[in-house]
């Protein structure tokens, strides 16, 4: 049956075999339902795993940091909307940044915000990896994520929205995060990320391209909204069909960009 190994030094985790326990919100469900598939749990007690540290412009968020910690951190107020979109209060005091990076469809809304921010993923063995590459290969990658590294965006540059069927807590029909650099309503550059629109959080480069140089008004964003669908690969699930997700993705992107909600 399931064994638990406690790891006191993050560095040691790189050599251990098993499932890393973050907040337990995904792994413990598996332990409860299919215990034979989780023979070993790695429980990391290294305090660094749960710390938010700042060095210059760069902020390191330990993989074991909870959504509640993110919301409480004055350094991370730009990420609070994405953290608040995860579950209810109990889930948020448990669910971790690291867990969210591996959360399968339709979960993982926080990772969408990290993708828009262009975060770096830091492994326990010291490697770092761009989050986009990380997400593309997460199904097969091995190792323990120690932290994510981000640089805070300009004030109000990161916009996050989550479309759910039920409120206030609901699972994603889609989530969208957009990072905009520019002046006033004119966009210089944009990173557009979608969640629950493919096997993992993904960028819409077509939308980003169309937004570059555009103005944030109904006409200015129309091309980007129309283009975003071409990069997305939604699937049917219990919440919505791929057809529906494709139909409304441009609508929700427009509403997020223009603050129509």
């Amino acid at each position, binding site marked *: 049956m399931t064994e638990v190994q406690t790891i006191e030094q993050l560095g040691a985790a790189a050599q251990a075999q098993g499932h890393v326990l973050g907040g*337990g919100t995904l792994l*413990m469900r598996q332990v*409860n339902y299919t215990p034979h598939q989780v023979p070993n749990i790695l*429980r990391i007690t290294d305090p660094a795993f749960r710390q938010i540290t700042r060095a210059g412009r760069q902020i390191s968020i330990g993989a074991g940091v909870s959504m509640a910690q993110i919301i409480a951190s004055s350094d991370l107020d730009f990420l609070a909307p994405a953290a608040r979109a995860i579950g*209810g*209060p109990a889930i948020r005091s448990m669910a971790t940044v690291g867990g969210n990076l591996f959360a399968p469809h339709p979960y993982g809304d926080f990772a969408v915000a990290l993708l828009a921010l262009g975060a770096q993923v830091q492994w326990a063995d010291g490697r770092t990896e761009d989050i986009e590459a990380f997400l593309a290969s997460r199904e097969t990658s091995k190792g323990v994520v120690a932290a994510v590294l981000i640089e805070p965006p300009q004030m109000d540059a990161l916009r996050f929205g989550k479309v759910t069927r039920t409120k206030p807590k609901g699972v994603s029909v889609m989530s969208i995060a957009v990072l905009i650099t520019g002046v006033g309503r004119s966009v210089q550059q944009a990173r557009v990320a979608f969640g629950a629109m493919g096997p993992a959080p993904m960028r819409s480069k077509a939308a980003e391209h169309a937004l570059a140089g555009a103005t944030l008004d109904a006409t200015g964003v129309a091309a980007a909204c129309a283009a975003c669908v071409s990069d997305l690969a939604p699937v049917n699930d219990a919440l919505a069909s791929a057809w529906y997700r494709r139909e409304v993705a441009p609508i929700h992107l427009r509403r997020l960009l223009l603050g129509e909600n």
Partner: protein
Amino acid sequence: MPKTPVTFTLNGAETGIFVDPGLNLLEALRREAGDLSPKFGCGQGTCGACTILINGEPHLSCLTLAVAAQDADISTTGGLAPGADLHPLQQAFADGFAAQCGFCTSGMLMAAKALLDRNPRPTRDEVVEAISGNLCRCTGYDPIVDAILDAAARVQGRVTA
């Protein structure tokens, strides 16, 4: 397979139990520590019936590894009433007919306590957010939200009714 000892504080009492390493805290509290107030509704973290407070923060005990509760300060609805009298939240739930089958009530009360401990004068939206992870199939929620607001008012001495 050897069981693992775990010690924690449960509703103010030092408690020690032996558990299988993979056991969740909900089962540990119920079967080993004998506190039956948290309920099993899903084992998936989707219903909130097992909500407890760990070090004052709401947690889902079904998704918490029991051995990870070592040295934790755990509160449950079983310990909510200070004595013979009910806690204001309990009294407000009773007076407001905020329970029917009662199965979600323990978890609701813990979610509400986590809110009021941090925010004694919540808005209605804040109450809604606080119980958003707790499902109720009977009441339609409004009586529960009303009861939590009522409890906050009672604690503040703002009793209106």
